């Protein structure tokens, strides 16, 4: 599918991780993605995806050139969506180990909570999304330990929330960009459109 004219330039934070897979998923969902590597590029972006990867690596970059502060203020006013490492960065509190985060979502999250790579899994389950069961790819995934009252839970793995939304922020502890199902990226593109 080609990009719909006039529909959102959506940034993908491209410090490290599977940002290319997110850009492809956004294109499939009708948006015009571009890669964000510097804080000044945030202004060109109507919404931002924080991809999967290593959250410690991303943090080391954000600590430089006031990127962290620029991103925190951006997240206060723009739609954002984090997957896995991106979800960790958006959470209010991070455990195992404790680390700095943007505190956009009222969530406590634990890194590598399901174990190491041999414990990674693909799970298919019903969710709040229309259109039937959803495939969810978990890779060295974090676990959401608790959520605040304003957080809407859209999908669970057993009892744990794995897809959540709070206002204009979304997060998944799995990797929708690694599946061919584009419902979640379409939902984010819709969210960006609704905030214009």
């Amino acid at each position, binding site marked *: 599918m080609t990009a719909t004219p006039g529909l959102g330039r959506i940034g993908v934070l491209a410090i490290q991780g599977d940002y290319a897979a997110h850009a492809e998923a956004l294109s499939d969902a009708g948006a015009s993605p571009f890669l964000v590597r510097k804080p000044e590029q945030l202004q060109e972006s109507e919404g931002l995806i924080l991809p999967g990867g*290593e959250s*410690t690596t991303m943090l*080391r970059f954000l600590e430089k050139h006031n990127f962290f502060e620029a991103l925190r203020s951006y997240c206060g006013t723009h739609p954002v969506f984090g997957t896995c490492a991106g979800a960790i960065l958006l959470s209010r509190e991070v455990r195992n180990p404790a680390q700095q985060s943007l505190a956009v979502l009222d969530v406590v999250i634990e890194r590598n909570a399901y174990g190491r*790579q041999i414990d990674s899994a693909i799970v298919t389950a019903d969710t709040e999304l229309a259109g039937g069961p959803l495939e969810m790819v978990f890779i*060295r995934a974090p676990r959401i330990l608790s959520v605040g009252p304003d957080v809407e839970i859209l999908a669970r793995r057993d009892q744990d929330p794995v897809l959540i939304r709070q206002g204009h922020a979304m997060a998944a502890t799995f990797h929708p960009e690694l599946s*061919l199902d584009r419902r979640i990226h379409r939902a984010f593109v819709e969210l960006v459109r609704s905030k214009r």
Partner: protein
Amino acid sequence: MPDANGKHQIANTQLRLKVGLAEMLKGGVIMDVMNVEQARIAEEAGAVSVMALERVPAMIRAEGGVARMARPALIKQIIAAVSIPVMAKTRIGHFAEAQILQELGVDFIDESEVLTPADEAHHIDKHAFTTPFVCGARNLGEALRRIAEGAAMIRTKGEAGTGDVVHAVQHMRQIVREMKGLTVLSDQELFAAAKEHQAPYELIRIVAQTGKLPVPNFSAGGIATPADAALMMQLGAEAIFVGSGIFMKERATPLDVERNASERNEAVSRAKAIVAATTHFNDPKVLAEVSEQVTGTMKGLAAAALDEAQLLQTRGW
């Protein structure tokens, strides 16, 4: 099977999870470490993963002897010390070492030509493992043979332990050139191409359709400076392995990061600079800044001066 958007998805769930972890490492730097302190420095500098090993390639090259899998105790200490994924090397064909590494909870296994090969004909059947594998390659045929055996990530072999990037460049250029070459062939010609590359027809066909490997393509072997990392990324590498380039001082002497503060700082400065150069590989302004911050580089060994018998890259088949 291609879907409505014409995309391929790997059918095997296990392999999707393995490739999935490789996807998460893209755009990052994987650093060889020989002790807990080096692993901490690597994580602190922004490495996406560390490779736990007994001796880095430059030391193996200088000291000789049989190079084997690292001690389990060392691997466990490193796993306990960092939150990023931990890799470890097994000898080519040594599936029992690989079984031990999987049992230890290593996140990625490198079936590596840097260690002394254990089998002169067979690589490990990597489908038999839950843990993903990375393997080295010098050309497309070698890469696809490793993928057929179950590798979830390919890296150029380069010439490890030299600090000379010339062979990594040669291998990356060759793999990219051979992939491009397949995209212009007709369906009938692909059968002969499979024979020529000594690789399975099914994989040849996927490369011909997509123009890229079905698994991530990283670079290793002689990368020692931020500029080397940027060079390999611009040539098409999706991430960078740095072996001897960060923690070595002289040919066979590592920087003393545990007791000498200035040598520790030097390792930190090299590690941070290579990480920054890998992210901003296309931005010469940033590359100039980070290159200026590096306080030293391993001395290195010109790969052209090595005898054929000293090459590590010719191991593996």
